[in-house]
């Protein structure tokens, strides 16, 4: 155990810090759940990419920088610590990206990854269907291979697809063997959202914005080279993606540590009012202890990975942990803000309250997306503790 950063790691931190100080947008970007905000974020992502700071852990040839996981954590600490914008293309970059690196052909990696790193291509997920959420093996959308084997014909519907209203591509699971059931006979496809036969219907989220959409496929032709992994092996590939989602990469600790820091500041600024409820101070202390524990766990895991360990079902504890922590912190902020907590962004007296409200609304979804926390608890019990099904 040696908890000192190496000179190389320190230099990298300095470089990222200096670049962010010089390049961070002066005004906060508009919400990426609006067309305008989406394009602002695309521009910011392009800037990061040009500085080779978009996907720091990817190999250089694929638009990354070849950093190790400790350097990635350092990048995230500097990025979120500086209050930089949330990453708009995280579905692609953090979920499909690692999946392609593990399962994609060389041609697919070269075709998709650099454009994903620069956000020229923005990606949406296509997993859930109206009757296949937590029970994902129940999906019915079909992708039938054409007689000449050149393309799939896709029919069906996906839903709860985050940022699909504006995205360019979708990745997800489709039933390619019509006689199959459950997790057999599924294939993992990348589908361009501008293809003929694709219809997108935005769904308004709690905040009234187009945070997600449902997508209808009507005889959509998808070239066979857009299949990731083998025909019928989609479930296997998808499980790897789900692992990335629940595991480390989707939610780096820095993002929550930043929230905890802001919460401590908020509490201090409103302490006289907040202390009328003694449990608020407790919750503020827990924001620090909770996010710090999450960061420590990430470093511990990264150290174990560097020594050749693999993360197993304990990744599911991550998902429960950060989603509940995030919710708790935002609830605490709402309680501190009291009667101002309900104000939205256009209210003249909202000031910082509106940002907390946005975060609060988003945090409500944490225990639901990426596999509900109830499902995660089942996974922990069955696969980590070995309890019977």
């Amino acid at each position, binding site marked *: 155990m040696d*908890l000192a950063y190496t000179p190389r790691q320190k230099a990298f931190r300095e470089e990222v810090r200096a670049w962010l100080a010089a390049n961070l947008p002066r005004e906060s970007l508009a919400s990426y759940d609006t067309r305008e905000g989406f394009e602002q974020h695309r521009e910011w992502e392009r800037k990061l990419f040009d500085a080779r700071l978009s996907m720091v852990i990817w190999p250089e040839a694929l638009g990354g920088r070849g950093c190790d996981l400790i350097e990635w954590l350092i990048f995230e600490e500097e990025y979120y610590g500086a209050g930089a914008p949330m990453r708009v293309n995280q579905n692609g970059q953090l979920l499909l990206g690692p999946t392609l690196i593990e399962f994609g052909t060389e041609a697919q990696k070269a075709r998709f990854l650099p454009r994903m790193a620069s956000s020229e291509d923005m990606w949406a997920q296509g997993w859930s269907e109206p009757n296949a959420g937590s029970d994902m093996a129940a999906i019915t959308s079909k992708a039938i291979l054409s007689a000449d084997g050149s393309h799939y014909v896709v029919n069906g519907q996906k839903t709860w697809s985050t940022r699909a209203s504006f995205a360019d591509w979708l990745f997800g699971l489709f039933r390619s063997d019509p006689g199959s059931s459950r997790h057999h006979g599924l294939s993992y496809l990348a589908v361009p959202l501008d293809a003929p036969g694709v219809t997108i219907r935005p769904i308004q989220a709690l905040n009234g914005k187009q945070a997600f959409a449902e997508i209808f496929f009507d005889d959509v032709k998808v070239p066979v080279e857009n299949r990731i992994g083998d025909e019928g092996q989609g479930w296997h590939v998808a499980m790897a993606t789900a692992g990335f989602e629940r595991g480390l990469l989707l939610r780096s600790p820095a993002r929550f540590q930043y929230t905890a820091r802001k919460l401590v500041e908020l509490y201090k600024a409103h302490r006289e009012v907040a202390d009328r409820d003694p449990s608020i101070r407790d919750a503020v202390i827990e924001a620090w202890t909770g996010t710090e524990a999450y960061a420590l766990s990430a470093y511990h895991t990264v150290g174990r990975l560097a020594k050749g360990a693999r993360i197993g079902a304990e990744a599911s504890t991550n998902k429960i942990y950060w989603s509940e922590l995030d919710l708790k912190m935002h609830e605490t902020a709402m309680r501190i803000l009291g009667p101002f907590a309900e104000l939205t962004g256009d209210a003249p007296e909202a000031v910082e309250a509106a940002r907390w409200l946005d975060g609060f609304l988003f945090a409500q979804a944490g225990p639901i997306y990426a596999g509900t926390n109830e499902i995660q608890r089942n996974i922990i*019990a069955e696969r980590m503790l070995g309890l019977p099904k």
Partner: protein
Amino acid sequence: MDFTFTDDQLAFREAVSRFLMTEAAPEMLREIWDTDIGRSPELRKSLAEQGLTALSVPENCCGLGMDDVAWALMTQELGYYAIPDSLADVAYVAAGLITALPAGTAEREAWLVRIAEGSIRIAVGHPVNPLVADANPADLLLLAHGDEVHAVPRAQVEIEANASIDLSRRLARVRWTPATASLIADGEAGRALWAQTLNRGALSTAGQLLGLAQRMLDLSVDYVAQRKQFGKPIGSFQAVKHHLADVATKIEFAKPVLYRAAYALAHGEAGADARVSHAKLACGEAAWLAARHGIQVHGAMGYTWEVDLQMFMKRAWALDASWGDRGFHKSRVADAILVEGAALGPGHTFEE
């Protein structure tokens, strides 16, 4: 940056675990509970033979000179087996205090050698603990009088036993009269010794609580996998699964906090107080949740003397407030993070 243990450290833990599995099996705990002194000279002898009493004694005093990080692993095993012995208090907490005395202090070397060979029991009466654990069987007591540190032979103190729900804890009110003859440190030096001793005591307790949490989880998992109701093992029911998954999650996120605190202590970091308090809080919460959900999934059996769960549960309840209760440790964390200019947020997990 490497936040993992070496293969040697992990192998050491494994060896201690295998040793305690046979030497401190639950049947033996029950036997020792029934004795008057609540301590087994045979167990102490075999702990010493394994070199466990010598762990943190400096090498020039017949010890192994291991640091707090090694103890973070070791104390988890002591908790996991709920050993009915004050090994950690003597070989880690008291040994640390005595080691920190200036070289040349009368009897310093002699005490350390005796700790290493396992021939002395030392009880530590830190002001944060109103009652002194293991005062009765101790040969020597390290006691506080303000900032002063006194080393007082057992014969010179009056002891009133206070029974605990955990029958392997032997607590006592200690009455004594400070005298020049027993004074071994005072003033700034004494204050520093008590401060460091508190951190060691709290870290040691945190490690034990984490080990206890893991043991209660393991016992509960075994129980619910076997116990059948409605024709199925109760461990197949979602409500039962979710209780235990929550315990596993608490444990998972308490572990690295304990390790970080041990490192901070071993390296004398400025923020060590808050790190140790964080560990004590996180491990205490994990142990209490493991006890609460453990008894629930054991059903009425969990409320009996018969099942082993009770021994670990009672230890967890007791240790949670030992070496500083939650209020004490929460205040120390608050002092560190609510102060002006506190180094908080991303990038401060390892750099101060």
